[in-house]
């Protein structure tokens, strides 16, 4: 009887259109997020990892037990392991003293090979030798065969430049020495800044990540160097964050819409509700009837809105493709999204209808409500 009222269609339409807004925007955002994930998936993440101390925020303040290197030595899918110690040292040149980066590595040859470096000269093999990156050499006017002095906390070492290299990496701006040189400067042989290791080609990065993690002690962290997935995930989160806050306003409109719908229903059903009470119906019966009406409108509105949202974005995207071939968007709304939207709209609608319903049952006589 109540559902045959004139206002029902408009009420369902009102809730439905609001749901369509949510579904439409959600569908487009889902598509954008999926596209960025797909694009991210085209690039195979490289299998290079670094092991740092858990509480470190940079490489130089990280300290890792050098013994951890042995954990990777017998792992068949590990291609190379290089323990490294990064240090800011004073470089003494003819033009003065400057603080520079020195990278001590357990095997300079392996390190340069992994960097894909083009080397002029030889590989530093002991603590009195070093290799210098192209940019570093240019900035400090260093040539092959030069001898340079490094200082750290009052300890000095003289090293000879035995090789100049170009790797198109940060190492081009560094001085690479065997780790013994750095150990001499800091007076510590037991720890390194971090351990870098690479996986063999074809190894599934996703599968072995957990296995490697389980090998490591709790005071270190494993960092996957190429952060493509993390980047894409953060980008998507930024859009979802905005959409979440914006959706709150839509749900507020749903609450308001439900309030006016129920208010109108109560006024227009004045006679029927009065009859329910006259015929012995309790207050909660009236309350239940109003709430039931609210729920029916919410459910019908949600179903209509979800259908309208999904269909309309598909139509719009198809039409756009006709006129604008480069705009190849295919929006979609996933099942989780459908349930979440349905639930939130339902709750918002019931919330909006509560006050007018309560107001009715508080009245002693069912006269002119509201």
């Amino acid at each position, binding site marked *: 009887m109540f559902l045959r009222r004139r206002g029902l269609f408009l009420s369902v339409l009102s809730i439905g259109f609001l749901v369509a807004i949510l579904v439409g925007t959600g569908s487009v955002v889902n598509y954008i997020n999926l596209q960025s994930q797909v694009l991210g998936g085209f690039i195979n993440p490289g299998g290079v990892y670094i092991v740092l101390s858990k509480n470190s925020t940079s*490489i130089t303040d990280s300290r890792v037990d050098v013994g951890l290197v042995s954990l990777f030595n017998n792992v068949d899918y590990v291609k190379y392991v290089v323990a490294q110690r990064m240090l800011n040292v004073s470089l003494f040149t003819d033009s003065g003293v400057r603080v520079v980066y020195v990278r001590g590595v357990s095997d300079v040859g392996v390190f340069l090979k992994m960097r894909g470096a083009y080397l002029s000269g030889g590989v530093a093999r002991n603590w009195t030798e070093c290799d210098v990156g192209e940019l570093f050499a240019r*900035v400090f006017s260093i040539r092959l065969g030069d001898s340079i002095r490094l200082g750290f906390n009052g300890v000095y070492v003289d090293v000879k430049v035995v090789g100049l290299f170009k790797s198109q990496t940060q190492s081009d701006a560094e001085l690479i020495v065997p780790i013994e040189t750095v150990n001499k400067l800091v007076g510590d042989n037991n720890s390194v800044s971090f351990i870098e290791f690479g996986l063999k080609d074809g190894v599934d990065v996703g599968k072995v990540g957990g296995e490697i993690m389980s090998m490591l002690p709790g005071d270190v962290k494993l960092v996957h*160097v190429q952060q493509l997935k993390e980047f894409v995930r953060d980008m998507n989160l*930024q859009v979802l964050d905005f959409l979440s806050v*914006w959706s709150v306003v839509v749900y507020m409109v749903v609450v308001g*819409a439900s309030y006016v719908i129920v208010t109108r229903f109560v006024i227009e059903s004045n006679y029927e509700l009065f009859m329910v009470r006259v015929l012995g119906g309790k207050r909660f019966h009236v309350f239940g009837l109003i709430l039931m009406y609210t729920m029916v409108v919410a459910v019908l509105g949600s179903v209509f809105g979800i259908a309208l949202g999904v269909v309309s974005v598909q139509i719009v995207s198809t039409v756009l493709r006709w006129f604008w071939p480069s705009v190849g968007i295919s929006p979609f709304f996933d099942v989780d999204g459908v349930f979440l939207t349905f639930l939130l709209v339902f709750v918002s609608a019931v919330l909006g209808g509560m006050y007018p319903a309560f107001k009715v049952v508080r009245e002693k006589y069912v006269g002119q409500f509201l």
Partner: protein
Amino acid sequence: MRFIGYKYVEGRRVMVFVVILVLSSMLFSMMAFSLLGFYRVFGGYLGGGNDIVVVYDRNSNTPFTGLIPIYLVENISSIKGVMAVSPEVIVPCVLKNESVFLRGIVPEDFVKLNQLVMVEGSMIRLDDLDSIIVGKNLAERFDLKPGERVLVLSVFVNQYLELYVKGVFVSRSVMDDEILAPLYVGQWLRGTDYNYVTLMRVKVNSSMVDASVIFEAIGAKSSSVGSSGVSQLFGGLLSWSRPSFKIENIGVNEGQKFMESYLSRYGVTKESLIVLSVIVFLLCGVTIVVAFKTILVQHKGVVGILRSIGVSRKFLRVDLLFRLLFWSLFASSIGIVLSLIVLSVMQAYGFLRVLSHTVLIYPDPLIIILNFVLVFVIILLVILRSDLE
């Protein structure tokens, strides 16, 4: 025309209608301001006005992924009317588990195009091998201070860099959300060799040079270059060879048009964003209609009395329109103000970022006027179609 002196519309009942209007206006304004803010931010990403020309890779799907030979700097610099050329490598990366953009630049040339005010620390130089400066927004987001060392992880290649924060700058542009580093730092993270950059921004005297002149100059040189020869600019720190290229792969356009062309590839134009916002408002319009009809139902008795004592339907409609018009304009204004407040709060708490850049909110007069017009039209239609019996 005399209006009915008797206040037959109860303010208490109109309040719900006003609240619905406030929320609808808020929804429309929030959507329109944020979308247009995004459009303005990315439209002006490389500099607005016709005095900034961008040389870019036409084959690239995004402004961040193209590669062009760096040695074009020499060709472009020699054109009369070119005031500065800034080769740049724009690269996405991850800092403290969050996405950021790092721009490799030649600092001396970059500042000729963009004024940077150092609020903390000092400016980088090209020979600062491991130093960066960070925009104020980024510094606040990550709580970065000069003297700090940060670990930057690449997105494109297996590269991790420890970099030293040398300063914090303000540019009053999207760069306040970026890291600026010497050019080669960007090239390391991009995984390209020193012969290539993402794009070049050229500052020109617009009365002497435009995009077509630069394109012709590049085209003239493209036929004469081979793979030999090494050039040295920027104090001899950067050197490069001369890889051959196809002129049809190089694009030259004004900065704003360049970015807008990328956005329009994906159907994002100012007009489409406004239309989208208007659709959202119109979908809310049904709720406004329901709210108005509820007011009418609530005042059915008094409207009936007025009609029975001889007040015409037309007169009642005009009277209702004027009574509700005030409330509508009031509600729209509140909705606009509330949307700006909410967006400002969202901006402050980092909820208003797209592609890791803060969306700048600007109360566009067009949107404000459109809001009032839409509300007025809906009210007008609903009153005209109402059955005042």
